[in-house]
């Protein structure tokens, strides 16, 4: 129950860990956009190397990345298979009804595989080196300009951080309820998928009621601690740009340059 998509934060002190979360968040977005510049083996090669370089900089073992990627494996296999089977062009190796396996299909599917896996890999690097709270902070900080159009940025970031804060609490409650129901003979792991889903439903109701109670308690506690909607409040955790954050800019400049030059070949 406690493993998430993309891998959870792992404590560390590498250069990537210490980067400003905004730099990492923006970097990840930039990377996803830059991937679309890639169009041949050279450029995709650069993308792969860049990803591996970034992963190496985190000083986190390959095994942990593999664990982060594994849940996405089926999605990747599915996409790649579709690509192979339904793209035509170039030499045709096999044809059977609407299914063709062609040269372009294979090349395309390799490119798509690289795209998907490097995007997931980069996002994993972000989530594995940055505590969720800081990602939320970075997000809120980057949204700040939206205040001008009256978007409630502060409330939005408070909602995000409370949601994150209560993930472990809700997990704990869910485990408790499951154990209580197991003790009374419920089973969650037997039978076919429909049976399993059915066995989850009686768990959801107590979980929902519990969450309501937590929400009421929390609201009282926040009010008692003088939280006021829309009033100015200071921010204890401040994000500060450091000189080292600028290096990210250089890395990305080099990456962009390489991609632009190499895509002509």
């Amino acid at each position, binding site marked *: 129950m406690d493993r998430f998509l993309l891998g959870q934060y792992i404590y560390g002190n590498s250069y990537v860990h210490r980067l400003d979360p905004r730099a990492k968040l923006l970097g990840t977005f930039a990377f996803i956009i830059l991937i679309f510049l890639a169009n041949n083996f050279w450029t995709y090669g650069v993308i792969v190397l860049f990803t591996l370089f970034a992963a190496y900089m985190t000083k986190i073992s390959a095994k942990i990345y593999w664990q982060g990627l594994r849940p996405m494996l089926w999605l990747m296999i599915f996409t790649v298979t579709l690509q192979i089977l339904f793209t035509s062009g170039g030499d045709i190796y096999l044809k059977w009804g609407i299914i063709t396996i062609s040269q372009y299909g294979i090349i395309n599917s390799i490119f798509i595989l690289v795209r998907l896996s490097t995007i997931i890999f980069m996002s994993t690097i972000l989530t594995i080196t940055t505590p969720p*709270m800081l990602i939320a902070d970075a997000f809120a900080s980057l949204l700040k300009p939206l205040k001008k159009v009256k978007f409630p940025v502060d409330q939005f970031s408070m909602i995000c951080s409370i949601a994150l804060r209560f993930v472990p*609490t809700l997990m704990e409650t869910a485990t408790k309820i499951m154990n209580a129901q197991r003790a009374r003979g419920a089973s969650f792991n037997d039978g076919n998928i429909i049976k399993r889903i059915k066995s989850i439903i009686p768990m959801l109701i107590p979980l929902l009621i519990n969450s309501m109670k*937590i929400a009421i308690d929390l609201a009282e*506690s926040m009010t008692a*601690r003088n*939280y006021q909607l829309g009033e100015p*409040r*200071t*921010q*204890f955790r401040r994000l500060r740009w450091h000189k080292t954050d600028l290096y990210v800019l250089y890395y990305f400049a080099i990456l962009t340059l390489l991609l632009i030059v190499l895509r002509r070949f």
Partner: protein
Amino acid sequence: MSENIIEVRNLTYTYSQNNQPTLKNLNLDIIKESWTSILGHNGSGKSTLVRLLTGLKEPDSNSQAQIKINGIAASEEKWFDIRNDLGIVFQNPDNQFVGATVEDDIAFGLENRNIDPDEIEKRIKEVLDFVNMSEFRKMEPSKLSGGQKQRVAIAGILAIRPKVIILDEATSMLDPQGRNQIHQVIQEIKAKYQVTVISVTHDIEEATKADDICVLSDGQLVKQGTPKEVLIDENWLTEMGLMLPFAKQLAVELRQHAIDVPRDILDESELVEYFWKLNSKM
């Protein structure tokens, strides 16, 4: 004459689902810088009183209720000012954490009061030292024990430098050791800061150590005074649905064996002293 920090007059409150009021014309004074215990059977209205004393609920609109805290008469616009000097610790530690880490949670109350981040940093250090939790500063609250959670909650309250601290059964979910640690922290707070502590509790031993005790029953204040005054009559305590302190239970037993233990003995050390005297007389 001692000054009152809280004055409550004619407080009546009815939950919207109920037709009977939960608090009925309650009058209450809390002495400034005292440690006041509030006792009462389950459902006597203690938590409801706490919610009204912190502005989480408003008294019935058709009542003549008046609440005055720290010189400010409560009204809807004034609650934020009143709460600036008020700290509350609730029963369930899990549901009162707002921050994702210990330090973030302590910062929450300070951020709400618009306090400068450098000052927040200083206070976090000070209060975590005070409750002996400095090494847990970066920890997620869900990874702490119940006693540690409550110590962090108290630290978060202490950081705002409150004049009044209200604890609503803050120790009821803790083991005896955790409970003792919290009691000790509160003693230390009382010694170091000028605060009034109001502690809602079912722990009668804790109440024997308070300066002042209020007993609630069915939404009314039925008795108020020092522990010696309030806890003297065993039969009355039982009638109120309260437990007897251990020393008093023992005294009741001893009296049945013709040892006439005085009724104002409240704790073990007084009992021991009485036996010493008894022994030297024989």
